[in-house]
């Protein structure tokens, strides 16, 4: 357990050392959501309609963008080897890295989403659902993404291959996440969507660190 | 049997493009795929045979 916390602390420290990194994930989210009004035009009714989808896609891409770095740096400089050989179980260290990734890439998005949602003219209760959906969804994105990052580690064509592997797996999260907000706006109640998201999250919390660890061992062979 | 003529059969009640497009694509791809698989197999075989020949030649040269 100690080494789990140590990993989280370490990854946060490393991120802080590269000061810009934490902020820029957030900036990416902001910029992408702002690009659409530019590409699509400023009609408010249209924008309100597409807001949940766009926010979710942006969150998804922002997560994706940070994924290749999740293990790559540790792999290149040999730290990952050291982790695999460490007396602490690798699964624990991996879980720590995933948590750190979520704290750096996922949590800020959750906190920022309402601000951006206001730009798109969503009302308070819809914003609440949006935050809730992101709170359940972003850890799911980090967990699934970690599997992909581990699988493509050291593989030629890294980043883009990663996107190819991970994006299809993200789609259910996207559908239910954006669906929750849309259902709420349409007055249908978001409960069903949210509980499906929660179920997927529970499943992923169990299996993703395990699959990631297995994939990392393969990559190190 | 509901077709009165061969033309009617090919016309497919006005859906010729869609029906034959579907069946045609299936036929085409399902013809091409085994062909490609077989070619892959025979390519490996060929290169293995070539390698064996080279081995034998090398052996002969050594012996003589």
């Amino acid at each position, binding site marked *: 357990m*100690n*080494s789990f916390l*140590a*990993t989280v*602390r*370490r990854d946060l*420290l*490393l991120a802080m*050392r*590269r000061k810009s990194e934490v902020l820029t994930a957030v900036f990416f989210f902001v910029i992408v959501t702002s690009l659409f009004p530019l590409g699509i035009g400023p009609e408010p009714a249209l924008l309100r309609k597409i807001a949940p989808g766009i926010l979710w896609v942006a969150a998804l891409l922002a997560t994706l963008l940070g994924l290749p770095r999740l293990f790559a*740096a540790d792999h*290149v*400089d*040999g*730290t990952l*080897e*050291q*982790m*695999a*050989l*460490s*007396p*602490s179980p690798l699964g624990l*260290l991996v879980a720590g890295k995933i948590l750190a990734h979520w704290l750096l890439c996922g949590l800020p998005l959750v906190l920022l989403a309402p601000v951006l949602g206001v730009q798109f003219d969503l009302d308070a209760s819809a914003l609440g659902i949006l935050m809730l959906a992101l709170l359940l969804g972003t850890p799911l994105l980090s967990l699934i993404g970690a599997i992909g990052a581990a699988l493509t580690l050291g593989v030629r064509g890294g980043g883009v291959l990663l996107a190819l592997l991970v994006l299809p797996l993200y789609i259910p999260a996207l559908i239910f996440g954006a669906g929750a907000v849309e259902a709420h706006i349409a007055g249908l109640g978001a409960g069903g969507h949210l509980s499906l998201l929660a179920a997927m999250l529970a499943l992923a919390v169990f299996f993703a660190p395990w699959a990631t660890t297995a994939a990392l061992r393969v990559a*190190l*062979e | 049997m509901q077709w009165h003529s061969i033309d009617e059969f090919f016309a497919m009640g006005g859906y010729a493009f869609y029906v034959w497009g579907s069946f045609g694509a299936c036929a085409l791809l399902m013809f091409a795929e085994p062909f490609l698989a077989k070619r892959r197999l025979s390519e490996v075989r060929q290169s293995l045979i070539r390698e064996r020949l080279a081995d034998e030649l090398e052996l002969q040269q050594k012996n003589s």
Partner: protein
Amino acid sequence: MLNVSDLACSRGERRLFANVGFSLAPGEWLHVQGENGAGKTSLMRLLVGLSPADAGTILWRNEPTPSAEFRRDMIYLGHHAAVKEDLTPLENLRLAAALDGIELDEHASMAALIRLGLRGREELPVRVLSAGQKRRVLLARLLTRPAVLWVLDEAFNALDVSAVKLLGELIGEHLAVGGMAVLTSHQPLPVPGGKALML
């Protein structure tokens, strides 16, 4: 303690080695020798459990590796720097210890760095250090992580004369208290005794 028998390894279609066997008792060390590409690094990676062997067994305290006990008893430093370029040597050392589940106080880590001649560089990011200084940061872990078996792959690379001497002394001290070591190097090693394994 360490018993290796009948180890075999192939890469691609090339058989690198087969029937490699040796054993180490406390206080002994092994010098793995061989020309470039002979398979020294591959052997070490098999030994520590990073890649699976084609055949053969590796026993540590009479149990097959990789066991949890083996991981606790062993430290492996390879070709890689395995240090974070953005962190200082001090932070690197302490975080590496934390990941291994070891509490390391400031005092002990400072002492290790000073012993390795990094005085005055504790607070610089590793990124700006010279090639030899980076290796020294890595080697400092030998002092802060208690281990019985040291597996060092070309640890003498990039080190200057005094650092080579220092590392020789460290290994000597380690052996004197019943430690074991497996080393590779293309240079003559400043450690007396030792078995040799030619690949």
